[in-house]
């Protein structure tokens, strides 16, 4: 099933990508296709809002790791926000919960200075 992905810019230089759905091998490429040009576009901060992501497997994690690494190469701040307990648990299983900057809310992720 296709993901619903909505991009918004709450402030200059800040891109928020809100994902709705289950991110698995079947849908991770869709996330990658949306995320890659945003990182390449020169945003200063990229926030991936995961509040409506009900499931994520290693394919989704891999896509976000790619996003993080691409962002770091470009000096872009990459943040995740509003993970539910199941999705956060997958990050913890992968020991990536401390690698990413994770915020409880998207508002906090947007408002925090880089």
């Amino acid at each position: 099933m296709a993901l619903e992905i909505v991009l918004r810019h709450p402030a200059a230089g800040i891109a928020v990508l809100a994902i709705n759905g289950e991110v698995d091998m079947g849908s991770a490429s869709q996330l990658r296709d949306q995320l890659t040009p945003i990182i390449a576009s020169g945003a200063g901060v990229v926030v991936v809002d995961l509040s409506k992501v009900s499931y994520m497997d290693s394919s989704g994690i891999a896509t976000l790791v790619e996003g993080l690494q691409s962002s770091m190469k470009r000096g872009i701040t990459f943040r995740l926000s509003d993970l539910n307990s199941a999705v956060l648990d997958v990050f913890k299983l992968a020991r990536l919960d401390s690698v990413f900057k994770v915020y409880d809310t998207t508002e906090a992720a947007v408002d925090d200075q880089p």
Partner: protein
Amino acid sequence: MSDVTALDGSVTVTVPSSPKYLRIVRRVLEAYMEDLSLDPAELQHIILAVDEACSNVIKYAYAFDDTKKISVSVSDTTGQLEFTIRDFGKKPDVTSITPRDLDDVRPGGLGTHFIQCVMDEVSYDINNDVGTLLRMSIKYRVAETAEKVD
């Protein structure tokens, strides 16, 4: 395109080897385990492990050929869930199936780690003429009840 059969307390779902059918496998497993009152976190872990195993079949056994089939079976034997995943593709070199170093932060390579973290036992039977039978099992925890009856 997909087939679900139930026999003697076990359920088997057979799907085409396309990533878009992974969520059907997850739905069937969720429905099967719904009545077991599993700890919610453990339920999610189990779903993840089986999903990752199916993803590995698509990637490695079938090299993303979506014309093949994957059969996933689940059965509950007094507190232990047993899963089998049958493919008819390229057999793995079982000696090379090891989780990667998690300190090496990079995309990919987490599926085997998740499977081995979650499941109590994992074994690969490559003795069939074609393909592989992956067996996984886990003794599951029942969720604590909200109310106690005196």
